[in-house]
């Protein structure tokens, strides 16, 4: 479970995230929705411990910067960041050993096959297309079998078939009881998938929506109402 309490992130005088609190529960897919510059990526990066912030973030009850928390979550960034000189296989070995995950390589193999990368393990990262890099990034985030998964705009660079596979994978991970927090501005992509949604605008959460409480309105309508028509 991911718990965020009163997180504020400033860049100089500018507040990218302003007193933000949210919870991503186990067995649910939580999406962070917002127009460009709303603070979605900053929130995800803060949770992942990549940025300094004011406030408190817990992963399964552990402070997000602790070693215990780091063992429990995986992070998929918007832009895949890999080591150009290493092959897919070497990336997997590196992350498996860094996370001390004994089953990491076996789990990675299964994911590579699902994402159609299994025959490319000898390719170096710089030989991969953006889509392939994104897929490898997902494999690396999931190979240690984390309980919580942070995903920043996950579908960028993926082809339609890969998007379907990833959506299916996310459903399966939810069914395994993992908490998944996704930042996105493409509502349609996750229309059938989300359980909880937080709408961000100018660094603040302006609306929290549970699918069960949605009623007649669609998430898109709520989103546009909250963000005063700004494009997602």
């Amino acid at each position, binding site marked *: 479970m991911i718990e965020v309490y009163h997180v504020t992130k400033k*860049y*100089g005088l500018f507040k990218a995230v302003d007193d933000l609190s949210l919870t991503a529960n186990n067995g649910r897919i939580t999406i962070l929705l917002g127009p460009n510059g709303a603070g979605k990526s*900053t929130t995800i*990066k*803060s949770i*992942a*411990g*990549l*940025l*300094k*912030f004011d406030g408190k973030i817990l992963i399964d009850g552990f402070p997000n*910067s602790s*070693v*215990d928390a*780091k*063992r429990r*979550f995986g*992070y998929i*960034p918007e*832009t*895949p*960041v*890999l*080591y*150009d*000189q*290493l*092959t897919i296989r*070497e990336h997997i*070995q*590196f*992350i*498996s*050993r*860094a*996370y*001390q995950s004994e089953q990491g390589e076996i789990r990675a193999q299964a994911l590579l096959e699902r994402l159609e990368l299994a025959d490319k393990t*000898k390719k*170096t*990262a*710089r030989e991969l297309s953006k889509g392939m890099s994104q897929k490898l990034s997902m494999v*690396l985030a999931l190979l240690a079998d984390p309980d919580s998964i942070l995903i920043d705009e996950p579908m960028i660079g993926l082809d339609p078939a890969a998007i379907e596979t990833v959506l299916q994978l996310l459903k399966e991970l939810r069914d395994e009881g993992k908490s998944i927090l996704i930042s996105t501005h493409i509502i349609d992509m996750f229309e059938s998938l989300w359980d909880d949604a937080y709408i961000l605008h100018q660094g603040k959460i302006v609306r929290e929506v549970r699918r069960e409480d949605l009623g007649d309105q669609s998430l898109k309508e709520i989103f546009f109402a909250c963000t005063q028509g700004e494009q997602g």
Partner: protein
Amino acid sequence: MNALSYLFFVKLKAQLRRLFSKPTSAIVTLLVVGFFGFSIYSAVRNREMMSAMMNVQSVQGWMMLFCGYVLFLMTIMILQKRSAIVTRDDAQFIFAGPFTRKQTLAYLLIETVEGSLIYALIAVAYILMMMSSTVILTVPLVLSLILSSLLMFYFAFALFTWFYFLELVKPRAKWLKYGFLAVLLGFIGLIAIRNVGFDGGGIQSTITRFVADPLFNWVPVFGWCKMALIGLVSQDMTTCLIGFAATLLVCAGITALILNVKGDFYEQAIMDAEWISELRQNARVRRSSGGTNEKVVSVKQARFGSGAAALVSKNLLILRKTRRLLSLQEVLLIAIYLGIVWMNGQGFGFYQFFVLIVLFTSATTDRIAQDLRVFYLYLIPDRPLKKLAALMVPSMLHIVAVVFASLVFCPFVLGCSWTEIIPAALMMTGFGWLFLSASLVCLRLMKSRSTPLMEQMIKMVFCLILAIPYGITVVALMFVPGLPALAVQLAGLAVNGLIGLACLALATPLLSGNNLMAD
């Protein structure tokens, strides 16, 4: 043109604003500028008596070294297979905007002047510090040095720009640049050959004659700048004026050539701008740790340690695959310094000072900073200090390689014994470690490497301060009778080691989230 001038000044303002954006950054910037100003001021004030002849010889030597450096830079730039003259942001604005070709080219030239001035000032600050011990520095000499440095850099950059455009417009014109380089370097080579074995005095006298050869005054720009400075030092103002006037004329000529470039180069220039921007962006977000042309060899078996140790394994694997423990530039620099010391007969002590300079420039956090931009580092479940220490291993290996390369030929070239070399190796390794750790603290202080130049300057100030305990220890131990040099240097190593460790601990918060990952 107003829009382009506006763009230039806004960019300049933004660069200055970035340096003064935070109180710490502003204070450090002022301190660094003050430190360099003071260094130059004290260098100029230090007018110990030296014979005029010695002054001329020294200026000749330093100018030849400087000319060699700019020539080397220019040759590398011109010989690049692919290059660009603007970044993506600028390209989209200036090439797509409502500007005439001449306005666009003038804007590029103004940027070239700005770049040349920055390079010139840095180079002059560096040269003055080196020169101050062997040359009587006067205000006119410093100003002339700045002017000649500016002109040489401008010539190098402008010529590169002209060849770039020429090749875009007429691909076959690339032979012109090869021809130009061949003639220029060939002529300099001939001057060198003409001085070989003239009086049977060996390499030392060959180089001394080469440095003073008046034929070098015929080398465009480089020879003329040297001639101007020699004219100034030997109070021959006519020679000085002729040197500068000729250089200015050539620079004006190349400016006119660029302003009158014809043909359609916009499309390729934009494509090149896209390419260079992507390279830089990749380097920033660590998609790429080097150029896309970097050679990578495959490794059959990779083994990884566990936890933070996996970082060490990963970096060593990259080192094995890229084989870039030592750069060609470092090897060349070491060889040049060794050559200078050998020629001047300055001895091993002086050489150690040069090696420390090489170590200072080599002990950068470039490799570490690349890792700091990759999020895996922060996510790996291990203690921050362990992870930071793991990152230091390849950089320390690099330092050890530099120390080894610097010292391995000393017994043969400088005739020093192993009892001198081993303490020196300890001292250098200790300082390498200190420089590296200090770089990390700078990185933490400056938050981002958006101003690597400023970081380098701050690092210098830091390192000077951090070296004080070493100095006190070594000087104090020298008064202990009968203590061998090895023991003194071991104590020095321990002091620098401890200070380095303290720096490492100070830099650890870098791994608890920082703004390097904010891009």
